């Protein structure tokens, strides 16, 4: 699933490891999400959105 997590994270000036720690995931999981290789649960999507101060739409809604 394409997403804008990486952009959101860079905007917030966070590293993958920092974001991972804040949302209770591993750095590898954040990397996989950013690359679109893993679709996170809604619970994790919400945790990431809250940490990055963005909505689920802004981070995960695909715009063609």
């Amino acid at each position, binding site marked *: 699933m394409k997403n804008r997590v990486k952009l959101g994270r860079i905007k917030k000036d966070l590293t993958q490891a920092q974001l991972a720690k804040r949302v209770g*995931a*591993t*750095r*590898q*999981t954040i990397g*996989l999400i950013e690359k679109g290789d893993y679709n*996170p649960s809604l619970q994790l999507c919400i945790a990431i959105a809250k940490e990055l101060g963005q909505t689920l739409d802004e981070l995960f809604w695909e715009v063609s």
Partner: protein
Amino acid sequence: MKTWLSLFLPTDEYKRQKLLLFIAEGGVLLVLAQFLSLIIGPFESSLVPIISIGIFVFYVTFRYIISGMEYTEVATQSDYKKERKNIVMKSLGFGVIFTGLNFLVQGEGFLIIEPIIMGLLATLFFFLFNWLSLKQSFNKNRELMDE
């Protein structure tokens, strides 16, 4: 997901899902092995469960090792070297304990070389499995790392 299995699963959801998948696949293989033994048997009664459990344990362990999800934070050369050193130390520790226990469980009149060779082999395999897992994790993490 509420299951008693959660007690033994990692907290990270990606790892948890993957591990559950490996266990499920292993479970299917275990059932197939049992079923196959019914068709092509009869075998010695104790052999079937031992082989089936062996298939399950080997499959789940092997899938876990090659998935590269054990060392989730190892993404740089220095992390890799540090972790490799840890694995060497862990393997040596394991080898010493394994060999020591092996000596304790030997009956009378055993050859001293036997538990030593067993210990060396166990240490080697322990190291190889951990090193392979580290290598896979490192390669995977490097691809996913921040530029």
